[in-house]
């Protein structure tokens, strides 16, 4: 449908918004604020977030609501870009909504497993209610995994979740659900890519998606090895694999028995090129990905690639701001927070 139709305007628009993203200096300024209210005031005055903070009073804003507004801004930006050249008509471009839907389902599964009443509704972001293609509010009425499945019947999430093993108490293992949903998400996304794009553009999108899968697998495998002592075989079963696409270069990494050697392998690979002086794996991997995505965004002429890269960068930005606000709220040491932030 969109073949041969120029998306240069969308790429230019994405780059223009990218130019307003927070810089290291702005993170530093934010970190020097004395309270959450001052942080909110700073964000409300920044060109990047001023729209979403328009009606709010920085003096009375709740920290949780502030974080929700940051995510809302990311979704608003995403929707605005997609609507700019009617990209929202193409299935691939619903990738961010799909991610939000999965997060909502996982939130509900966690709610069922923990037995906490109303925790799903409390934590469900308000902006997801109108954007999700599934009835997220209806999910809140489910009291067991089977009831949740019946709500999700007819959606793309039913099939992967229906294969998850359920225990005697009617609960499903959270990590199994997450793996099934994420695997299904990426498989579906790659199918859309295969259908809607071709040539070098298709290759570029696949590269960026596989890079993300790899980074997720690397972090999860390291955690499983370091904190739970999982064997290589168990790790291989617990990572995201895509049908027809073997683990490939990462096979060697999954075989490593020692977490320190895993870290050494990462530092030698393209996933650990951030050269950050930290031993937190998320910081190392996400910083590398952040650099690479910035490079992709600067060099690509493809709208789907630019949008995907940009949204991942936005997620990193929000993660940084949330970390800073938490640090300010609890009076953490600014230098230590800055050291472990995901910025480049």
């Amino acid at each position: 449908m969109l073949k041969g139709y120029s998306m240069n305007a969308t790429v230019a628009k994405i780059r223009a918004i990218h130019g307003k993203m927070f810089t290291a200096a702005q993170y530093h300024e934010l970190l020097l604020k004395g309270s959450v209210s001052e942080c909110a005031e700073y964000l409300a005055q920044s060109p990047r977030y001023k729209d979403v903070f328009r009606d709010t009073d920085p003096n009375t804003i709740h920290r949780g609501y502030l974080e929700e507004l940051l995510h809302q801004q990311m979704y608003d930006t995403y929707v605005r870009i997609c609507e700019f050249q009617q990209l929202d008509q193409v299935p691939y471009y619903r990738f961010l909504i799909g991610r939000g839907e999965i997060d909502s389902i996982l939130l509900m599964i966690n709610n069922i497993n923990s037995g906490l009443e109303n925790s799903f509704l409390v934590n469900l972001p308000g902006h997801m209610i109108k954007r999700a293609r599934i009835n997220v509010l209806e999910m809140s009425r489910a009291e067991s995994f089977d009831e949740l499945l019946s709500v999700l019947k007819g959606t793309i999430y039913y099939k992967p979740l229906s294969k998850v093993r359920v225990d005697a108490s009617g609960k499903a293992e959270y990590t199994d659900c997450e793996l099934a949903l994420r695997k299904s998400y990426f498989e579906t996304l790659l199918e859309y890519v295969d259908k809607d794009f071709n040539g070098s553009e298709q290759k570029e999108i696949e590269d960026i998606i596989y890079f993300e899968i790899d980074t997720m697998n690397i972090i999860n495998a390291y955690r499983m090895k370091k904190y739970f002592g999982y064997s290589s075989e168990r790790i291989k079963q617990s990572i995201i694999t895509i049908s027809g696409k073997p683990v490939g270069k990462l096979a060697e990494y999954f075989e490593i028995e020692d977490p320190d050697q895993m870290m050494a392998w990462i530092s030698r690979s393209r996933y650990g090129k951030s050269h950050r002086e930290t031993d937190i794996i998320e910081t190392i991997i996400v910083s590398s990905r952040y650099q690479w995505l910035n490079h992709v965004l600067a060099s690509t002429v493809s709208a789907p690639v630019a949008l995907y890269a940009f949204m991942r960068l936005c997620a990193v930005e929000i993660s940084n701001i949330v970390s800073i606000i938490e640090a300010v709220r609890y009076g953490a040491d600014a230098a230590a927070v800055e050291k472990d932030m995901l910025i480049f």
Partner: protein
Amino acid sequence: MAIEKMSLVNILGSMDELDAALERCCRSGGFHIEPAFSPGEARGRLLNDKNCYTALLKRTAKLASDCGVTPVETDCRSLEGERAEDLEKRLESLEQELDVIRQTMQDADSRISELTAAAKHIKHLKGMNSDFQQLFSCKHVSVRIGKLPIGNYPKLEYYNDNFFFIAFESTKNFCWGMYFCPEDDKERVDDLFRSMYFERVILPRYVSGNADEASKKIADEIAQQEEIVKETEEKVGAFRKENEERIQQLFSRLLFLNRSFDLRKKVGAVSSGFGAKHFIIKGFVMKKQEKEFAKLFDDLETVDVSFLPPDADSGCTPPTVLKNSFLTRPYTMLVEMYGLPEYGGINPTAFVAITYTLLFGIMFGDLGQGLVLLLAGILLGKKLGPKAGGIVRRVGLSSMIFGTLYGSFFGYEEILDPVFEKLGVDFLPLKVFKQTNFILITAVGIGIGLILISMLINIYAGFKKKDYEKAIFGCNGICGLIFYGSVITGVVATVMFDVKIMSAPFVICLIVIPLICIFCRVPFSAAVKYKKWQLSEDGEPMTVGGFIVENFFEMFEFLLSYVSNTMSFLRVGGFVLSHAGMMLVVMTLMDGMSAVGKPMVLVIGNLFVMAMEGMIVAIQIIRLEFYEMFSRFYDSGGKPFEPIDLSFSSQIEQ
């Protein structure tokens, strides 16, 4: 080329009369104060007391601002002699009187802002028909009013808790409304709403009736309070009318005292016998104002004023005041732009005035446009200051004179021909395009003349300062003058007049020997001044090889500068041609226009040429002055004369 002669003044007196002495220094309008002692000097110390007038001045400024008085300089002699305590009493009485009036206004203002905030909240509850007071007084039901993020509103339906929410108004991000719950469940429901980021609004107790009634009551009360504010403003106006003069006097007096107190930081304190304390003020006045200055202190019994030569104190550098006539005074602006000369140096203002006016006239010669500049100078003098206006008037006049010689009037090059014919002057007007070579050669000739004059000034300045390197051996000294003059004479005689004067003795005596002198200027000047042989200026050891290499490159630079500076004056001729060329374009454009268009093109073309070329010519002449002439003789580094002045307007007539 004179610089005003200065005298060093020492004012010594008893500490009791310090304020009076400072006041007289200020009143003189021509006293440049210097710190009485250098840091660490044993004879005494500088005063560093806390300024007791600063706080009073701030309070007076606030009082003036509160009652809408703009401080202007006012005659405050009636307050002379009053101490800080007396002035404070005056201020307090005014403050108390105004405070009584303003308190009512502040109360009303604060009530208005409180009511406005309540009205803003109630505005979002339009449609609420129950009485607020009745709702809040329920015993078994809790009511909360506030706003909920709009995204969380649909969630309410899915909670099974014992509450209900009534929405009144929705904005882009929030839904305004109220929720009701049993008193017993209040805490749990409050927690639930807090988790959805519900922001509660506490309405003031006085809000009663339903939303519409409450809005109306609040609006009525706001109107009442505004009426009170209006009445109070009238009272403030009456207070202002009654006390404005007193406030102005008080402010002027305190400002004067505050500033004069700041001057104390430069006043020295010395102790004399029997524990008596004395002050010493040091500074400069113009020599011609000595008597007048001393007379100001006649009525002060303990104060003694003594005048010394300006260089009597090695710790104080005398300031420079340029002495200029009415004709040259505006050009001090250009000299100050480059930097003031040192005290005892040369005042180049007259030289700048003559050369600037002359060159501008040559480069921008047009009778009509010069007249416009002259008129513009008269108007600009009022807007941009007397100096800028003065320069524009003078260059305008010069432009008119040269315009007459060129026979040019707003670009019409033949309009003055009949006048000259009638007068019988056949060599005028000067036709620019027909005499291009003459114009360019004349321009270079003017340049040579100006460079030679600059060298002569440099020689004079060098001898005055007893700087023999500068006066005799330098590239702008006597040797430079002989070398440059001889080369020019030789070239002109040989090329233009075919006179062979470049004989061997001429070259050896007037070109080679001066060049050797310039090359060896450092050792020669040291030999003359210190009667000893040294290769470097500061006496540092230097090898002969090092000396030759260093001076070879410097000589190269000197020779290049002679050529480039001379050729630089070609621009003077260039602009004569460029001006005529631009006006020719205007005339050509005009020819192609209709009868209506012609005058428009003429006016716009002339304005364009005047604005653009006038600006460029002005800048180019400044460049010629600074680079081609000033660099040959002028040393800046003088200290500006800054007489102490405590009046509101600090402009001093010089």
